[in-house]
């Protein structure tokens, strides 16, 4: 019985120390309330902090015939009041969809009846009651496409053209790949790794660039890290599930499972790409000409090759399966274009690109592990190194088409 009471006592001790974990939290709450109660007088010791900048965040400028709609957010800690609205340095009458005073992170839409000039630049200014003017620019004024059935279909078509179609075309390389020598197959797998590395870096750069424009209150870099981390670890979890389900041996994914993973990685990247296309188009920042669409198509054909390479060894993969893979990788472009075209949200865009970066990175790791195990000469063979570099080079060169 002594041993029992000993165990009980040790359990009680363990419990007590677990409860101890609450003590720092309680102390923190106490300290914070004390500090708050002091009215910040402690800070006076180091001088007065400067007044807030009182700048608004102009989220979106939409143009309709005879009308400009400006979505404005208050990124500051203090309330901000919209006092004056200017268009091209002229004070204009306007209407608001709510109160002129915006609390932190609250938004309002400013509607300005205005006869804007097509294809000419336009600048809007929102002045706070404290006289601080925030300006937003439209590079070339064109009517913002509304949510019409035609527009919806148009974005879907564009998404299909630059996303699904090229990936499907790339998958048609599969029969040729099947007849390739093991060395060359390894080279194509490495090429997949190379192009995914390119996509990962591309998405990360995009995410970091977009977050830099976000108001500080939205925590840009943290948001990027959160997206990258969540998608990388999430995809790691998925790949582990694939591996234990028997798709791979010894924890290394291969074949269809790896191809699926590659497709998911590419799909997430294409979601971001679609978003970027849709947003730029909707906001008149991009002339979505024929050349650009061709550029994206050429750029994305390689993605199909990347998905085909892992399944090249496997026989008997039905056309249905392949079509599904093409959809997984390509269809997100359509969704991205829809989202970008109609609801543009900078936070969402940052998150999308961060998620894409994390996913692509994870798939690079999986592909690397696969190549390391299966390639005749391992990771350092000339075929693998050459293939990897070729993958990056192809993406770079075709990327110039859409730069």
């Amino acid at each position, binding site marked *: 019985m002594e041993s029992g009471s000993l165990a009980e006592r040790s359990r009680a001790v363990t419990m007590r120390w677990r409860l101890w974990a609450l003590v720092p939290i309680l102390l923190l709450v106490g300290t914070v309330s004390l500090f708050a109660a002091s009215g910040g007088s402690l800070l006076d010791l180091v001088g007065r902090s400067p007044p807030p900048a009182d700048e608004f965040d102009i989220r979106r400028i939409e143009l309709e015939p005879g*009308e400009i709609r400006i979505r404005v957010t208050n990124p500051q800690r203090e309330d901000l009041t919209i*006092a*004056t609205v200017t268009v091209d340095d002229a*004070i*204009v*009458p306007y209407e608001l969809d709510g109160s002129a005073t915006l609390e932190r992170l609250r938004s309002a839409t400013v509607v300005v009846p205005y*006869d804007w000039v097509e294809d000419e630049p336009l600048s809007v200014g929102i*002045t706070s009651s404290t006289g601080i*003017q925030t300006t937003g620019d439209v590079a070339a004024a064109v009517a913002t496409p509304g949510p019409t059935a035609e527009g919806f279909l148009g974005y879907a078509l564009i998404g299909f053209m630059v996303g699904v179609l090229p990936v499907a075309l790339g998958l048609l390389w599969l029969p040729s790949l099947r007849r390739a020598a093991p060395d060359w197959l390894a080279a194509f797998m490495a090429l997949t790794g190379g192009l995914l590395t390119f996509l990962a870096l591309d998405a990360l750069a995009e995410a970091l660039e977009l977050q830099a424009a976000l108001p500080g209150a939205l925590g840009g870099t943290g948001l990027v890290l959160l997206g990258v981390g969540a998608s990388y670890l999430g995809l790691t979890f998925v790949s582990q599930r694939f591996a234990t389900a028997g798709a791979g041996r010894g924890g290394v994914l291969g074949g269809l499972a790896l191809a699926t993973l590659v497709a998911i990685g590419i799909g997430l990247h294409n979601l971001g790409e679609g978003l970027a296309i849709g947003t730029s188009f909707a906001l008149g920042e991009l002339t979505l000409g024929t050349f650009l669409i061709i550029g994206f198509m050429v750029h994305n054909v390689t993605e199909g090759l990347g998905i085909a390479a892992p399944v090249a060894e496997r026989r008997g993969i039905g056309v249905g399966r392949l079509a599904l893979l093409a959809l997984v990788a390509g269809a997100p472009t359509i969704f991205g274009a829809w989202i970008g075209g109609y609801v543009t949200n900078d936070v969402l865009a940052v998150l999308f690109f961060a998620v894409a970066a994390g996913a692509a990175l994870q798939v690079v790791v999986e592909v690397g592990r696969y190549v390391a195990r299966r390639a005749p000469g391992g990771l350092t063979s000339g075929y693998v190194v050459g293939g990897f570099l070729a993958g990056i080079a192809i993406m770079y060169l075709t990327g110039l088409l859409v730069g």
Partner: protein
Amino acid sequence: MSNSRTGVTRRQLLVGAAPVVAAAPFAGLAFANGREREASHRGHDRPHAGHAAMIGPEVPAPGGPHDLDALTYPPAALPYEPGRIREYSLVAQDVDVEVALGVTYPAWTYNGTAPGPVIRATEDDLLRVRFANGGSHPHTIHFHGIHPANMDGVFEIVNPGEEFTYEFPARPYGMHLYHCHATPLKKHIHKGLYGAFIIDPREPRPPAQELVMVMNGFDTDGDGENNFYAVNGPAFYYAKHPLRVSRSQTVRIYLANLTEFDLINSFHLHGDFFRYYPTGSTDHFEYTDTVMLCQGERGVIEIDFANTGLFMFHAHQSEFAELGWMGFFDVQD
């Protein structure tokens, strides 16, 4: 300093002036809803005027109908009288002023307004201006005109809490101005320390309906460019409250430019011409409808309106006009 000059009732608010606006060059501002306009092409012959028209109560301008009376209507000219002393008292004050509807600006003022009060004397009056600095920075008053060096408001810096009395004979007759000359000069002027300074000739000018207009601007976000322009302070004030004048008597405007940052400013009258006397110190005049003034330049305008109705006046820099420097005369019989 009661207003002896006119029996004109300028104390009425203008209503029902919308039709005139259709003819105004800022009509685009007034009702720019293109869709409605398209609709009007189809259905009606008049555009929809439901949006804020740039005249009358709908105009986005701060202030009530009489808020600017003290700055708009100068104290009466006094006939020449040898040995007379004219005394004024100016206090520098840091005041938050509403420079455009809903926009406050931390101004530095003489007596609480930007521009400061109108100072008026007759030539050879002894002018005595007591200046107390109740602001937070050193200031002075620098008068334009003829006076001794130690009355020039350049070397005698008046620190916060201190006082200084400027005393000199008012010379020469004309439209002048005064402003702070403490450094940095640009800051002290654009913050609001300036005003009109009228010296009447010993031989009085013919009777007229007299107005003062000090052209100014406010850079509310400190980027070295004015966000708002106006005369006598708030943007669009005289569009919201048109200046009511009588056609039967000359309208005389004492005009000065104290706009900072911009090289020039201007005054343009619609529908009529006027005589412009540069600096107002001679009989020389120009007959025109537009005058251009650099900073510190000023003059006297005399209008004999040929017609009644609403006549716009504004800077002929369109940008200034659309940022607040625009108003109307309501000419009546």
